[in-house]
């Protein structure tokens, strides 16, 4: 029987295994060494690899992000730890104007093999600047790959692939899932980018969900199954590149689709995937494709308000019921 470990441990193992394999890898960020990050994801790494390779930086996100770009261009393979996804706004120039474009602007001469690990996810009562899910903003920029692990298994396999990739890769870990356990093999494995995982097969409706929304979709699918509605759950695993074919094949089979992601709904990941389904499976659809993202408001602090802003399994199940009944569902 496969052991079960937490997502946090899976990330830690992936980094340790890769750092043992390749001496050019180092990790930098705020409070990553002795503190092991506020979420303790990196605990123990500095003891094995020392402060030369697990580097505590000042609170200077643009500075250390920029340095990672320069290090990546000159033979190193840095892993950047960005303590909260919300801090992406601080590093946008270095990530989007520098890291993402260097290979292209140099006509393929310069490479930027770096990984930016950060997090996402609301409902931790952390208010508007520590709760955002900003994957759509990064996915919009050509030259960046974007991975969204949905469990400890994905977290490890995708991170190892990211570290070996010769391009800048941004990984969003849902901070509410760090203590969630999942079966993770002892032996080495990698998960390729651009290959979606069909988490559950179904006939009546396709639920395309990212990161922690995969759990939400699976719960909804359980509920729906008891009511005689068969839902297929697809986890794209990476949104850049996106495995369109698996999604389109599923929708052609089920004729209905709901796309669930925790980023803001407008101009978001759900909109992009819904548009591709509409373009490529339109004549197979029996209902409009539904987007379910986070409400288009800053994340509120009060639990009474915050819980209203994120997609829930009840909400997904209700939308699925309605489109399966032939009702028209308007986007929130």
């Amino acid at each position: 029987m496969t052991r079960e470990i937490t997502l946090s441990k899976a990330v830690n193992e992936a980094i340790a295994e890769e750092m043992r394999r390749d001496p050019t890898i180092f990790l930098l960020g705020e409070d990553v060494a002795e503190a092991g990050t506020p979420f303790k994801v990196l605990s123990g790494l500095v003891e094995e690899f020392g402060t030369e390779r697990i580097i505590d930086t000042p609170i200077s996100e643009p500075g250390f992000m920029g340095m990672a770009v320069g290090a990546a261009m000159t033979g190193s393979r840095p892993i950047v730890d960005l303590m909260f996804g919300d801090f992406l706004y601080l590093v946008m120039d270095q990530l989007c104007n520098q890291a993402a474009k260097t290979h292209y602007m140099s006509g393929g001469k310069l490479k930027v093999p770096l990984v930016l690990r950060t997090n996402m996810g609301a409902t931790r009562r952390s208010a508007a600047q520590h709760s955002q899910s900003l994957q759509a903003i990064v996915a919009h920029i050509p030259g960046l790959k974007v991975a969204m692990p949905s469990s400890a298994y994905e977290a490890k396999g995708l991170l190892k692939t990211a570290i070996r990739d010769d391009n800048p890769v941004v990984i969003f870990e849902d901070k509410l899932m760090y203590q969630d356990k999942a079966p993770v093999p002892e032996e080495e494995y990698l998960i390729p980018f651009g290959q979606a995982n069909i988490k559950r097969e179904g006939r009546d409706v396709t639920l395309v969900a990212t990161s922690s929304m995969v759990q939400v979709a699976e719960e909804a699918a359980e509920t729906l199954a008891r009511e005689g509605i068969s839902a297929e759950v697809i986890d794209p695993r990476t949104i850049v590149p996106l495995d369109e074919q698996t999604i389109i094949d599923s929708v052609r089979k089920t004729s209905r689709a709901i796309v669930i992601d925790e980023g803001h709904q407008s101009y978001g990941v759900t909109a992009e995937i819904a548009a591709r389904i509409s373009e490529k499976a339109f004549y197979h659809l029996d209902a409009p494709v539904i987007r379910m993202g986070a409400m288009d408001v800053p994340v509120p602090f009060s639990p009474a308000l915050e819980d209203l802003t994120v997609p829930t399994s009840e909400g997904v199940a209700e939308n699925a019921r309605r489109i399966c009944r032939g009702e028209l569902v308007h986007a929130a």
Partner: protein
Amino acid sequence: MSAARKKHNTEDYLRMYKQMVRIRAFEDKANQLYLSAKMPGLTHMYSGQEAVAVGICEALTDEDRITSTHRGHGHCVAKGANFREMFCELLGKEEGYCRGKGGSMHIADQANGNLGANAIVGGSMGIATGAALSAKRLGKDFVTVCFFGDGATAQGLWYEVMNMAALWKLPVIYACENNGYSEYTKTDEIAAGSLVKRAEAFGIEAFQVDGQDVLAVNELTSRLAGRCRKGEGPFFIELDTYRYHGHHVGDINRDYYRTKEEEAEWKDIRDPITNFGKSLIDQKMFTAEELVAIDNDIAADAEAAVDYALKAPYPDGSEVDMHVFAGVDHALDYLRGAR
């Protein structure tokens, strides 16, 4: 590129002279290409600042890295680039250093250690400092010089990376080319206090040097690069210099921010090429005729490279989605999940 040497000799002086003349010749041609509407977009002239790029790059080895700026042709030439690939890049041609994808503001020449020009003011300060971190971590001997202008000292990024460079004793030299103008604004109006003291506040040894004196720049840089290799970095140099043209080639009417008398004074009295040439003649290393012959040869080289680049083919349209990702031939197929 010559390796850093402890003592200069006639050969070194000749190289420095030639490299400065090459930059001036390149820029004169680039300006003509713009004025005759043969160049797409616009560009920023380095003319007047040649002693900075040449004095510094002649103190570096091929392995040493530089990061460059939007006013970067001088750095590129000084670090060893060829006219032909440079003009091809400026014109968006396939044979350009970046296959026409970068242009004037993003020209990069990896083979000679040029990590690229950068169109974000101050945008390469992190890259240069990270390259120095790479050298230290990987046990490599190379030094990185970060070129930037006085305008870039207003960017917060510089203070973040200087702090880390000083904390971790990184082999990086911050070379601030103070040409007196932050785009269309006098530097005095945008910079409070002293730039040198800003670096010194981080415990970084800082120097001010006449950026029109190629030998002074070269001597200082040679010394600091050597000290960087011994783990004594980082360093800061403020180089006082002047840009002959406007902020970019289209900035022709400049009376509202600086006088023609000021421009004439720098060109007549402090030109780095004229003055260095005179000193070579005074020291009887070369005759005036020999230097004129060198100037003419270089001008002919530039002319030939421009002619070549004008006739060179553009990249095939199929290249538009190449080089988005390393290891991926065509990004558009890849982004849709093609295997």
